[in-house]
Structure formats: C-alpha cells, structure tokens
C-alpha cells in the first residue's frame, strides 16, 4: 500500500488530503466526539464501501475510456483506499476515546476524586482511630484527677479544664460517626466520659478532696476505666 501511494500521484494526493483532514480534526475534537457517538462503527465500513462503489460506477459512466492505465490501476485501488480511510477514521476515533474520554479511570485525573463508598469507609476508619485516641486521652485526664487526690495537683486546674473542653469538642464530631457506624459500645462509654468532662470543664479552681472523691466514686462504681480498656482493645483489633 505504501509503495503504491509512493508511486501513484493521484493516490498520494488523496492520502495527503486524508492526512490534512485528520490533522484538522485535532481542532474539532468535541465535534468528532459527538459525531462519533452517533455512528454505528460496525456498519460504517460497509456503508462507505457501498456508497463509494455506486459513486465509482457513476464516475465510470461520466468518463469511461479516456483514463490512462495508471488511472485504471488507481480506480481498481479505490475500494482499498476507502477501506483505508474508514480504518483511519475508526482508528483515530478509537485513539481519541482511549486517550481522552473521561471514563472512571481518568475521571479524576485533573483533580481530587473519591467515591462516596470509599469516603464512608475512610470515615469509619477515622471514627475508629479517633475514638481510640479519645478514650486514651480520657484515661489520662481521669488518672490525673485521681493522682491529684493522692499527691496534690499534678496538672493545674486551668490545664485540666482546657483538656476536658478539648475532649468535649472532639466528642461532638464522634457522636454522629459512632451512631452512623453503629459503634454502640464505644458510643455508650464515650457518652459517660463526656458527662464527667462537662463537669471538669466547668471547674477552673483546684478540685477539693470531696469533689475528687465523688468523681472517683462514680468512675469506680461504673467501672469506667475497665470499660474504656475493653472498648479500646476492640477498636485496636478493628472490631
């Protein structure tokens, strides 16, 4: 085919025209895409061949015998050229779709993209980690309070109050997630701790022995530290 095009000036001119046409399609890709979507690609080569054969017949009727032998050879090659043109158009369209079509794989290439399902899984993982972190920090705060009763204030009252307030803020975010992901046990223990922190966040002065005694009594009676450890273990193992 390449040899023939090289030798035959008419076919070479036609091939050049096709190449120019394809180059021009670069500028009108969107139109090509829209047009390509409406084409039955399976049936297209057959349709083109049919039309060209009828046009070929017409051409023969207009100028039957004056053509040279080379021209006749080119005429005989026309179905091949039509096939070539159809192949080039189909190939160009296929390349276009392969490289440019915004399928799911390429959908987010320009920016961030994550499916809703993935974001739910990420939030579940985040809920697990953050609850674990919340429980650990809560343990530290409670242990600080208890140590204060034995050895005097370990952490200044203002710092303790600030920590309690910070944990209350974190808990707000956890509430919805724990409910959404049905982490009932974790929710129950976090809710109880939250009530203790509500109290601690309001006390700016040092706790009296009586106040510490009350909190300690509540924590021990409800076995909060034990429950915290059990829920932590479950969360660590990804349950």
């Amino acid at each position, binding site marked *: 085919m390449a040899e023939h095009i090289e030798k035959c000036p008419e076919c070479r001119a036609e091939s050049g025209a096709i190449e120019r046409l394809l180059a021009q399609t670069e500028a009108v890709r969107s139109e090509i895409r829209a047009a390509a979507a409406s084409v039955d690609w399976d049936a297209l080569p057959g349709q083109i061949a049919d039309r060209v054969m009828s046009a070929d017949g017409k051409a023969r009727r207009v100028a039957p015998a004056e053509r040279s032998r080379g021209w006749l050879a080119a005429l005989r090659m026309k179905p091949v050229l039509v096939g070539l043109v159809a192949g080039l158009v189909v190939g160009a369209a296929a390349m276009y779709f392969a490289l440019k079509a915004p*399928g*799911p*794989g390429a*959908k*987010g*290439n320009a*920016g*961030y*993209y*994550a*499916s*809703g399902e*993935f*974001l739910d*899984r*990420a*939030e*579940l*993982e*985040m809920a697990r980690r*953050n609850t674990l*972190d919340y429980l650990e920090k809560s343990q530290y705060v409670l242990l600080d309070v208890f140590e204060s009763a034995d050895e005097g204030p370990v952490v200044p009252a203002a710092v303790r*109050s600030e920590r*309690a*307030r910070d944990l*209350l*803020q*974190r808990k*707000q*975010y956890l*509430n*919805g997630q724990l409910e959404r992901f049905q982490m009932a046990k974790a929710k129950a223990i976090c*809710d*109880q701790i939250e*009530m*203790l922190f*509500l*109290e601690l*966040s*309001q006390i700016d002065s040092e706790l009296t022995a009586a106040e510490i005694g009350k909190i300690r009594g*509540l924590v021990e009676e409800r076995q909060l530290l034990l429950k915290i450890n059990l829920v932590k273990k479950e969360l660590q193992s990804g349950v």
Partner: protein
Amino acid sequence: MRKTTLIICLALVLGLGPAAALRAGVQAATDESLFREAKLLVFDKSWTAALDKLDELIDKFPSSPLAGQALFYKGECLSGLGGREKDALRAYKSYIRLEDAKPSLVEESEGSIVDLAFDLCARGDASALREIESRLDHANKVVRYYAAYKLSLVADKKEAVKAAPVLSRIVETEKDPELLDRARIALLRVSPESLKSAEERKPRVESTVRMLRIRVMKAGSKEPAFSLNIPFALADLALSAMDEDDKAAIRKKGYDINKIMNELAKSKESILRIAGDDGSVIEIWID
C-alpha cells in the same frame, strides 16, 4: 429617740440576718441536691427521671443559680429522649441567652443545636437547616467548624456545598490533624475542586507530594473497578479504608503497603503496578 431607733435597727439586723442566711442555706442544700441527683441520672441516661428532677428544681427554685444550668441539662435529657428535638432546641437556646452561662456549656449547647437541626432536617424539616447555616459565620470557630462539618453531611448537595468555604479555611489554616482530615473528607464529598484549591493555597514544603492516586482494574475490564485521587495527607487513612479483597491481593503478592507508600513518597511520580493472579491490576502512584 435616735438611740431607740438604732437599737431597733441593730436588733432587726441581728435577728433577720441569720434567719435569711439560714433560709438560703436550706435552699442551697435542696436545689443542690436536686441538681446533683439530676446529673447522676443524666450520667446514666435515665432521661425521664432526670427531667423530672430538673423541672422540680426550676419550678421550686426559679431564682437559684442552678436553675440556669438546669436548662442545659434539660436540653440534654430532651434530646436524649428522642422525638422532642424542638423542645430540646428551645432549652439549649434559653441556656445560651443567660448572662451567667458558662462558656464550655455554651459551646456544647451550640454543638447540640447543630446536631438537633441536622436530625430534624434529615426527617424532612428543611427549615431546621437555617440553624446550621446561621452558625457558619459564628464568632467561635469551634461552633463554625462543627456547623460546616455537619452541613457537609446534609443529603441535599446544593445545601451541603455551602459548607465549602469554611471547610476550605480549615484545610488552609488549621494544624490539628484530626480536624484537617475531617475537613478534607468533607470537602471530597461536597466540593473536590474546593479541596484542590485549598491545598494549593496552603504553604507547602518543596518536597511535599500532593496527590495519591489508586486504580484497581478487574480482569477483563477496561474501566477501573476502583478509582481514587486524594491528598497525600489522607494516604494512610485511604489505604486503611481500601477494600479488604484489594488489600489481600497486595499482601498475597508479598508487598508491605507502608513500605510502598514510603518508597512512592520518596520517588515522586513513580508508579507501582501489582498484578493479581485473577488478572486484576492495582496501580498506585503519587504526583
């Protein structure tokens, strides 16, 4: 005459003072005990019993300093009971308006109002959204951030996207990793393009990588079964949240996902392709 008047006044002061003090002491013991009992019941989530105690406190001792705080706990009980969200909203709002309201309880009340409004909205009361939207420009950033986070979860995407400016601001300015991750995920839900802009505006170290990309192609399929482009900061979370089958495929091939991430982070724009025995292909790269 003046002497007699002085003696009478002195007698009155000496006589009435202790009586008043005694009365105040009795009241303090009573309202305090009611309050303490109510709080213990709240701690155990015995909402109805706690509500009774709080109502008793408010009715019997309306001028007690604890009557104000009782409003906050009343809000807690009403929202815990379920079905009385509007009453709970009223209780919290009443508490916020008090002059002697405690800052930590005010913050809690604001957060609870946002939660209650979100629940009401989810049940079809669209007007409740105003409670959340109005807090997007709240002076307290704790309230502002939480309102934006909750708004991003609203089913109506046109409403949810209103949270984007505040969430973007969190991404740009906040240092707390937990808050940052939440804001990033919320923005990925409502406005990924806002997340991209916010990350770009954020000052970056030169060597910082920006985007983690993952594609999972199942055998015989040209379309990825899983596609992800997220900030690298969420990489750890993303890999933990990957489908168990995909993670198993990676492990089966003998890859350590943590090492992979470290290697990819060091060699920018390199790509890792893992072909599974079933013909699936997992591609992970960073750019």
